[in-house]
């Protein structure tokens, strides 16, 4: 298993395979971020696709290669917001409602949507780990490898992230 840092370097050396590994690693977190904004699986996929293409174009500008994860999720959020805006612009006033509020298919259940929102509000580093752990389903040992940190550090950070989530939960009463 290669770290994000190594994979980004390999991409910049022209390796298509390295980018595919990154896409596989992050496609679920990226879709989760977009889902958090758009609340709709189909549109979240469009946003995710757009985010990866944009990330590939902008990859040479990424200063801290180890920060690929938080970086791509930020791009995903912007892509999702753009898609939300575009839809609002092209749809007529009444159809926006149908699209965004009333359409029951392809939408995340409300309690999950709420949980996702709380996850999105975590600090960047914690959110990143939670996403890789629960969305991309990496065990802690592999998380350590991906982020280039020790297993101990990752365990501690994950536990802190969960602690924060719990506090949030208690606060909002989920």
């Amino acid at each position, binding site marked *: 298993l290669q770290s994000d840092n190594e994979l980004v370097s390999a991409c910049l050396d022209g390796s298509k395979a390295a980018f595919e590994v990154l896409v596989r690693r992050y496609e679920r977190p990226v879709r989760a971020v977009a889902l958090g904004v758009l609340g709709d699986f189909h549109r979240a996929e469009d946003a995710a696709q757009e985010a990866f293409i944009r990330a590939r174009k902008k990859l040479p500008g990424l200063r801290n290669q180890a920060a690929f994860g938080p970086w791509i999720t930020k791009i995903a959020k912007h892509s999702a917001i753009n898609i939300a805006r575009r839809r609002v612009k092209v749809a007529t006033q009444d159809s926006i409602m149908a699209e965004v509020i009333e359409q029951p298919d392809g939408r995340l259940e409300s309690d999950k949507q709420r949980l996702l929102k709380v996850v999105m509000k975590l600090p960047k580093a914690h959110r990143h780990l939670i996403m890789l752990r629960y969305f991309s389903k990496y065990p802690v040992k592999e998380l350590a490898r991906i982020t280039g940190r020790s297993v101990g550090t990752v365990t501690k950070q994950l536990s802190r992230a969960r602690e924060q*989530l719990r506090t949030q939960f208690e606060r909002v009463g989920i």
Partner: protein
Amino acid sequence: MTLEDKLERELEELGSTIRPNEKLINAVMSRIEEQGLAKQQGQVLLIRRIIMNRFAKLAAAAAIITVAAVVWSIFPTSVIPAAYALQDTIEAYNSIRFLHIRETESIFQLMRTSEAWLQCDKYGNVTRMRFQADWVNAIGPLTVVGGLDGTQAWLKRFNLVLQGRGDTSVILGYDVLQIEPKALFERLYQQEQAGEIILDINEPQEKREPIKVTVTYPQGSRSENWKKVLYVDQATKLVTKIEKFQFGGGQYNHVKTSEFSDYNQQIDPMMFNLTGEVPEDAKVVEMTDSETSLPQGDMTDEEFAREITRQFFEAVISKDFYKAGQLSLAAPGSMIEQSLSGANLLEILSIGPAYPDPDPDSNAMICSCKALLEFNGSYYELDAWRIRIVRVEKDPNLWLICDTDFLVIPAPGKITITHDNIGLDSVTYNSLKPGEFMKKWLVLGPLPYPTLGDIDFSSKEGQRIAFHTDNLDFVNFAPKVNIDGTEYEWAMLESEHGIIGLEELSEGSNNYTIDYVWAQIDMPEETKGTLGIGSDDGVKVWLNGELIHKNWMYRTVGVDNDRVPVLFKKGRNQLVLKIQNSLGYSGFCCRLLGE
């Protein structure tokens, strides 16, 4: 199960909802292939390696750089490492003598434009200028001309010329330094050195493309929600455009665009004076700095801003227009009196807290004030919701009011609310008399905007969606309603006046809220007519379940804002209005106007 276990399980479940999507991965990879993105990196790579190996052996690096330079000359499209610095622009302005600036400002849905012409000395500093705006709050059209020796401001609406000795920056609170590009870059440079801003410089490979300097502000600073983008011409290093944005509702919203053009194109000296523009009968008033404003003493900036606001409004109430003028714009009292157009300010209702203006280019303090106003026998509320107070440049101990954004709304009458025995019988009208306001309604609200993922409802999109979302049966009345999982009850509202203020129903802020009001009308026969409806802000109208009118507007209540053709059936009619409020006051009025 402990909360930890529950959380762990819910996270696992949420993660499992988002299953791996092989199709998406393939789609991404084939688009990357199609667009040739993987290949494109070859040229970029060489430069990256130089940067990454800069701590390696110096000689080796030098050799690679030499190779890179050769490759570069063969492939002119390869990436140039960013070399631009703010000082380049500051220096470039030393050769500028003339310049034309055009500014467009967004105020709610309105766009206001202004233009400026600058003449500079051999060091690039402004010596003469002309500024003109099509509209300035409370002043109207404004032209300011002048230079180091003195300034004149022409206020067409008042047929008045204000003359001041000294720098243009002290007249009418207008600050030439806020638009002058050299000063602006010097300030940015200082802010960068002090770590007060975050700069992102994007220097494109294509020479015709401008260098894009993005300025953001650290979290926790007063301008943390603002962003400025400066476009700098690569060849001349002069700025061509500046855009300013404020974050809100999940996106950056446009605040102002300044475009810079006609560099070093000689400006006719006549542009820098008012000769021939001002009517002969215009009043000319000499302004002196020494008499303006109050001394701050040991008050904090916040306390002092509130004090100036209080003293200004008290001066207007006691008709001491001279003092009011001195506190506001250092303007003559006659101008303040004239701007009231015969209205009488009676009483200060409240003065808001003061705080530093979040606009990164402003050094002002912001305060607000509500006051009661009488005009032609009717009472109004003056809501000066943004009063800018600035330090007088020449005397840091003196401040004055330089700009006020305000609304005037009819003062609502007394409202009685009851919660017992709620039913349509209590709001049934036996026919409607044309011209008479409907003062009895059932009211449901204030309701919060519906929740919608991450879309912020203070954004335009969010507000539009809130306007179009209704989860109510408009035909069959029920005393309790469940909306978004919360139960709400209708209440009975009776108003003394025709204009009904809804903000009184809110315990806290009534920003971004919705109210529905319902009345039942018994008509002896089918009646055709027009409903005169006023609302603050948006309004929707249903008659017997049918949506007969909608107007999504940002406005204050006015009598008969909207005239809606209506056909009442014989017998019982159900009339429901939805009032959507974005910021501040909320209210409505409704009456039949006859056919």
